[in-house]
């Protein structure tokens, strides 16, 4: 099948899909409507369990099982990347050469690194109160670590980042989520049911029962996952070279 025929088929299929989707859009309830029965019940339920951030309550309490699925996809994606990007027998590691960095850029990177890691931890810790949570804060903290690669060089990053430790952390965080779910079963209720801990005072760091714990587990999982992913990509792009002359 040549390019022309394929393009025509794509255009025909796309036009059909577009017509169906537009017809569906015209029949949807109008944008900004006042009828959100499911959302209203979720807000009510979240306030009953004293979780200030309703979205965190949906993620880690009312639909915690769903989040377990998302976490499994994340774990699987990281596992797949690690397997795909491992060093094979026909590749060798070349030590990266140190990089010339202009002094203001280096100073900025080293000064902002701790601030950014702290912000990431703040976003994780306040997940059940203000906008944020494990998913967002984990990415922020893990990205922040890589300022060391951007502002200094790859060897500096490798010194503070033992990848093995982060792989263990990833697995530990994933199992912590499962164990917290099973604890609900052992306590005589249901898997991932938020009945283990007292709900606490509204709008404090410890409110919401198991929500802060699950949130912290996800934060650790995401941070470790992103560090491991970027480590494999940096290895491939910076260090690993094909054996030449064989």
């Amino acid at each position, binding site marked *: 099948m040549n390019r022309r025929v394929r393009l025509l088929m794509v255009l025909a299929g796309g036009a059909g899909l577009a017509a169906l989707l537009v017809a569906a859009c015209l029949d949807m309830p109008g944008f900004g409507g006042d009828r959100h029965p499911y959302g209203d019940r979720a807000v009510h339920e979240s306030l009953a369990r004293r979780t200030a951030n309703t979205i965190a309550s949906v993620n880690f309490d009312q639909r915690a099982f769903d989040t377990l699925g998302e976490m499994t996809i994340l774990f699987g994606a990281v596992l797949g990347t690690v397997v795909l990007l491992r060093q094979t027998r026909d590749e060798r590691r070349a030590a*990266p050469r140190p*990089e*010339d960095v*202009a002094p*203001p850029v280096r100073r900025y990177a080293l000064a*902002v690194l701790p601030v950014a890691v702290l912000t990431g931890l703040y976003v994780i810790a306040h997940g059940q109160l203000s906008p*944020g949570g494990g998913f967002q804060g984990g990415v*922020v903290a893990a990205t922040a670590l890589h300022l060391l690669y951007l502002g200094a060089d790859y060897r500096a990053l490798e010194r503070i980042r033992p990848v093995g430790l982060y792989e263990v952390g990833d697995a530990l965080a994933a199992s912590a989520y499962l164990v917290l779910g099973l604890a609900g079963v052992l306590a005589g209720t249901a898997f991932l049911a938020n009945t283990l801990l007292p709900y606490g005072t509204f709008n404090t760091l410890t409110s919401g029962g198991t929500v802060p714990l699950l949130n912290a587990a996800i934060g650790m999982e995401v941070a470790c996952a992103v560090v491991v992913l970027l480590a494999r990509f940096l290895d491939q792009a910076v260090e690993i070279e094909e054996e030449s002359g064989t």
Partner: protein
Amino acid sequence: MNGWTTAATLTFAGGVGATVWGVATGPLRRRVVAQNLSSALACPGLLLLAQGYGRPAYVDLALVLALLGPVGTLVFARLLAEELAADPPASPWATWCAAGFAAVVVLVLCAATGPGRAMVKLLVTGALLTGGNLVASRALAGGFPGGRRG
């Protein structure tokens, strides 16, 4: 709609709209500058929205953008150092205009909130944003003289 959200909407329509155009066309040196300016302009816009909606919690968004926006530009400066060294971007007036705009917005918002923890957070965000964007623009204009090494 109130004055704050109107100002934010104008910032997005004019500023961020212009950077979408800038990042879509032209030589690579103009595109990287447009990418840097997009975060420098969107961050004050987010601060204005937080004030306009009366939700101090939204300031977290601007804080994270002020931290990670310059980091994103550093990524491009670092990994495209070879291409940029051949054709270095120079945009002093646009960068300083964006930094000045951010500073003005932060100061006006500080005056509107009054002293307290919220004001400290605003000042930290503003300092990180202006500093970060000036450093990121410096990095684009030859921050990695070694070129493509490690």
